């Protein structure tokens, strides 16, 4: 499964970048979301995936007695997911506002701030 | 008042089942919790006679499951056989139930039974538009609904 996941992660990264490289605002956000998912899965994979118990100590026990999944990557991803959510919501609204004010969906037309003024 | 109390008890029960902890303290906690939630969300009061409902409720649930399985098999047959023998369409079903809860319950039950799908209720709440797979006879179909689910729902809501 690791190989499959690695490929999928690669695909997520590739798709994310490809979408960002398009000229559309909406695709830009989708790209960012895909990349974020890729990064989360990467942490998950590189934290070593296992089919052991979920990292929840069984009832009537104080410690694990069987193999369990490493909780650290899970906690990290959880944090990362939630942060990405904040950023993504902001991004979506930013794009909405930018579109409304700049009146274009074409990122190529949003280059006034790089021009000498 | 009564309505609220009943909802409260019901929600408490939901809580206890949810937590799977049947200690008295958990009932108490669930009660307080649901009381707070109801307090937060209740605006205006809706009347219902809960205590007469329970047996009928059980009956309608059983009836519903029976319909569910029956219709499922019907659809299964349709799907598995190569030829499509359906006579679908959208049917206007006049409503006798008037309360929102009743209409919703009816519509949902109709939707859950295979082969039929409640598309919408008219704004004047007079008719329910149902999409059905087998409409051999429109009147018969309407009657089936009215004598089946609707009758039983009316009994509950009486």
């Amino acid at each position, binding site marked *: 499964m690791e190989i499959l996941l690695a490929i999928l992660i690669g695909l997520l990264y590739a798709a994310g970048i490809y979408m960002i490289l398009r000229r559309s605002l909406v695709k830009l956000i989708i790209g960012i979301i895909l990349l974020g998912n890729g990064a989360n899965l990467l942490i998950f994979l590189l934290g070593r995936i296992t089919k052991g118990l979920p990292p929840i100590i069984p009832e009537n026990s104080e410690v694990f007695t069987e193999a369990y999944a490493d909780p650290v990557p899970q906690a990290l991803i959880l944090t990362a997911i939630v942060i990405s959510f904040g950023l993504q919501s902001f991004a979506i609204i930013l794009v909405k506002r930018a579109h409304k004010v700049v009146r274009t969906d074409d990122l190529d037309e949003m280059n006034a701030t790089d021009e000498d003024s | 008042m009564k309505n609220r109390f009943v909802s409260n008890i019901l929600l408490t029960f939901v809580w206890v089942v949810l937590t799977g902890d049947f200690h008295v303290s958990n009932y108490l906690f669930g009660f307080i919790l649901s009381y707070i939630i109801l307090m937060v969300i209740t605006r205006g009061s809706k009347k219902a006679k809960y205590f007469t409902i329970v047996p009928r409720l059980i009956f309608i649930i059983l009836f519903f499951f029976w319909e569910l399985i029956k219709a499922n098999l019907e659809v299964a047959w349709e799907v598995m056989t190569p030829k499509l023998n359906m006579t679908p369409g959208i049917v206007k079903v006049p409503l006798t139930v008037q309360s929102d809860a009743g209409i919703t319950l009816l519509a949902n039950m109709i939707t859950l039974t295979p082969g039929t799908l409640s*598309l919408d209720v008219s704004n004047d709440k007079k*008719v329910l*538009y149902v999409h059905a797979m087998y409409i051999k006879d429109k009147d018969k179909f309407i009657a089936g609904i009215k004598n089946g689910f609707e009758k039983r729902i009316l009994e509950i809501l009486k």
Partner: protein
Amino acid sequence: MNILIGIIITLGTLFVLLAAVGLIRMPDTYLRISVNTKAATLGIGLLLVGVALYFYDLSTTSRAFIIILFLFLTAPVGAHLIGRASYFIGNKLWDQSKMDDLQGKYQRNSHILKSEIDDTPEDNVDHEKME
């Protein structure tokens, strides 16, 4: 006991499979919604009953029960919404459909649904059957 569970699970799985096949085979959106909502609910319901029986403890049972409850509460509402939206966006009924009582009863802009056709037909959602 395990055999009973096996049977229940198998039935559930079959229903799910049926729903999937139905989703492919059904000729219009409304029929697909129809098939989807129930076969899956019943199928999943059975699967979860199987799970509850397998573990046979209170917490699993209550969770399975709650999932079923949630599904039964939400699935028909969802079906209603998507079916209705389908009608607005102009998804046509299968060409062998018998009737369309909804025709001409939605007001195009307000989405008010009337019980009878009144005298403002040009404002209403009105589409022919699929070609």
